[in-house]
């Protein structure tokens, strides 16, 4: 008896897709999204309509017209001129932005240098030095920044001399002074011909860049190493210097001098500015130190051992092998730390430094009203800065990734 073998092809039966309205994934997805959108839209409508009603009831208008109103107060620190009774709230907004950016910029530079220094201390093979750095980091990171800012503000007040006993920082030359009100330094005053020197400086920088490129190409081609640092420095200093002298030194120094009850002339930094800068650097450097340490430790030990093995000296191992590989791990947290510096500079308002929040969100809001517009503008400023910085970070990350491949 022959065994019947079925040669029929297996029929693939498609499972009948029963459309169940309540179980279908697409329907549910659309439904939940609609629900969320409705809920959020409802809350937004509720808030906006309430705000409109409240504004109307209090007889307030909505709009940026108040920016053209003359501001009745004078910020005590400004990088651009301000005349009470003439200048408007838009000028105040500008002054606030400039002050915030100025103190943040200086604090970022200080933080970066001091933070790297501390990070290297943390990594030191010397037990005492790494422990001192650790103690610093732990103490600074576990105390609120606001408390530290106020502390330095009061310490500076207690330590610095009074006006009449101002400390002469230039050792008797009477150029720069430090007293309880702040720091007074000479400030350059530009004359007509100065821009020649700036043009010369720009040309020198471009020239130095091309010189370095040429030297690098030569080294790649012939293996000969040219001195780089000294020629570069010579180009950048000598060319603008010669132009500066040949145009007749078109710049003078405005030196601060004591007149009556205050110093006039030069540039001054108020006590609150110094305290804020100091506290911001001290606080954020501790965080940067930890990032630097983590970044350097993330480079595997074999790398530095191999580098030592091919005969590089320890400082070359650090600068040519370890640091370049640690940078991709250090830079992203460092850039978000810079962002934190900008945000935390807003604590200036506690010690009365005229940053954006203090001068615009506090004083202007109290004198002009218009809470919605002022809060919105201030937040928009910080958001712009934040977006810019995270954009920079994205560019850096992309470049690092390309190099890695």
């Amino acid at each position, binding site marked *: 008896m022959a065994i019947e073998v079925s040669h029929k092809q297996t029929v693939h039966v498609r499972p009948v897709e029963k459309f169940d309205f309540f179980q279908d994934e697409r329907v549910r997805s659309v439904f*939940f999204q609609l629900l969320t959108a409705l809920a959020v839209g409802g809350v937004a409508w509720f808030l906006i309509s309430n705000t409109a*009603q409240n504004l109307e009831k209090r007889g307030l208008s909505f709009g940026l017209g108040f920016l053209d109103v003359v501001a009745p107060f004078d910020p005590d620190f400004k990088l651009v001129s301000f005349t009470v009774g003439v200048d408007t709230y838009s000028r105040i907004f500008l002054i606030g932005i400039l002050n915030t950016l100025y103190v943040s910029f200086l604090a970022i530079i200080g933080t970066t240098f001091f933070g790297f220094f501390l990070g290297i201390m943390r990594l030191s093979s010397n037990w005492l030095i790494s422990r001192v750095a650790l103690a610093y980091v732990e103490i600074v990171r576990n105390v609120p920044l606001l*408390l530290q800012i106020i502390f330095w503000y009061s310490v500076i007040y207690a330590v610095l001399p009074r006006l009449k006993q101002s400390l002469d920082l230039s050792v008797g030359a009477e150029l720069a002074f430090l007293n309880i009100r702040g720091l007074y330094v000479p400030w350059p005053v530009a004359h007509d011909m100065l821009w020649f020197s700036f043009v010369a400086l720009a040309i020198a920088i471009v020239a130095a860049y091309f010189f370095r490129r040429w030297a690098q190409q030569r080294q790649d081609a012939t293996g000969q190493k040219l001195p780089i640092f000294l020629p570069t420095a010579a180009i950048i200093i000598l060319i603008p210097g010669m132009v500066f002298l040949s145009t007749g030194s078109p710049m003078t120094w405005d030196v601060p001098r004591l007149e009556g009850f205050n110093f006039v002339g030069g540039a001054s930094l108020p006590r609150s500015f110094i305290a804020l800068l100091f506290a911001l650097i001290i606080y954020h450097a501790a965080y940067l130190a930890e990032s630097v340490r983590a970044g350097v430790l993330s480079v595997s030990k074999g790398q530095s051992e191999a580098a030592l093995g091919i005969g590089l000296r320890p400082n070359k191992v650090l600068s040519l092998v370890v640091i370049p590989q640690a940078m991709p791990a250090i830079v992203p947290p460092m850039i978000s730390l810079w962002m934190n510096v900008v*945000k935390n500079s807003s604590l200036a308002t506690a010690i009365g430094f005229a940053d954006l929040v203090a001068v615009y969100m506090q004083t202007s809001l109290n004198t002009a009203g218009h809470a919605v517009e002022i809060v919105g503008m201030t937040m928009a400023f*910080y958001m712009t800065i934040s977006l810019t910085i995270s954009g920079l970070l994205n560019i850096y990350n992309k470049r690092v990734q390309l190099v890695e491949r």
Partner: protein
Amino acid sequence: MAYVKTKDTPSRTPPLNESSVLGWLKINLFDTLYSSVLTVLVLIAVFFAVKALWVWGISDGVWIANSRRECFKISIDGACWAGIFAWFDSIFYGRYPRTDLWRIDLGGILLIVWMAPLWLPRVQGKILIGLSTVALYPFLAGYLFTGGDKGIFMQIMLSAAIVCFFATTANAIIGFLGGGNLIAFILRKTGKNKAPEKQQRNMLLTILAIGFIAVFLWQRGWSLEGVTWTRWGGLFLTFVIAGIGIASALPGGILLALGRRSKLPVVRVLCTSFIELFRSVPLITVLFMATTMFPLFMPEGFVLNKLVQVIIAVCLFNACYMAETVRAGLQAIPRGQYEGAHTIGLGYWGTIGLIIMPQALKHMIPNIVGSFIGLLKDTTLVSIIGLFDVLNILRTISRDSPWLGLHQETLVFGAMLFFIICFAMSKYSRHLEVKLSTTHKN
């Protein structure tokens, strides 16, 4: 002829290795000339810094005096700690009525007793204890701190909290002594542990209902004097704000993080923009927004007090930061975990709640505790808005006429206070990380 030593060769002295103190010093402090010079310089600097601090704070410090002037009479350069002692109660309790301080103490003790079982061995139902603390303790503490008239809702929640407190405490004691959980214990003692399930359930519900009604009736005849929020202050207020912030930041952050990783575009875009909005602005601007714009947001006649405004702002702000922390933890979970969960038939919430979140949260413990520490430090910002938190009280001391100008001592005291709390938290989180770590160390 053979040369055989008849005497033992004297053994060489061991190398200066890490086993001896001298060896340790040589390797860690005086390895090279450069290192030695640095060691000596740092030692000198540390010595002078510590000595200056010691002289200022301890040996020349004034501990008992009635005013700053008296401090100066005793020692002109030393620290005037007497001011701290004079203001001690205020630093911890703010302007809370002095006769009612026990209410704050009791609130703190209740929280400790309620949460303590979480750290005790052999106690069962820890998740339930934790959830009940978050859900019911706020009502108990809220009434203890504010007092005044109880509405009917408050009466019910208060009774529920008290019943729950006694139940969890009894459960913890029974569990700690090795008797299993509370339910099994009651069933065993009443001899109903063999009874049908329905009968057991009915009996337990009856006991619960009787307890609840008894507490409800008892609390009706008992009330506390009202204390307005304006008298809250000091470390107490800092803890209230930080506590509510911590308790709400984690769930809020988890929801926002899930929303940001959602497949639904509308949810994703909304969550992302919400998180990015709050993360890109300083907390102080959010606080100003809360105090100036919330009154405009609310319908007519509905007034939020400043404390509530600030707490809402702190919660929103910290939920956004927590969301990024949680998201980083979620990203560390390999795809296989999701796929594995799908194959055993779990849905979205089952996958997230049973498989993904437990692992992600465990990974993120140090970062989560780091955010909590940041939150605690950030609560000092409410002093700028005018709430009397611990920092503002410390600043007030220097404006009090007997202690006029007392700045450094108060701030150093505040710094020590924060340091102790934050340092303990971070040390504990590191301990927890090691304890919960399931990866094999070799």
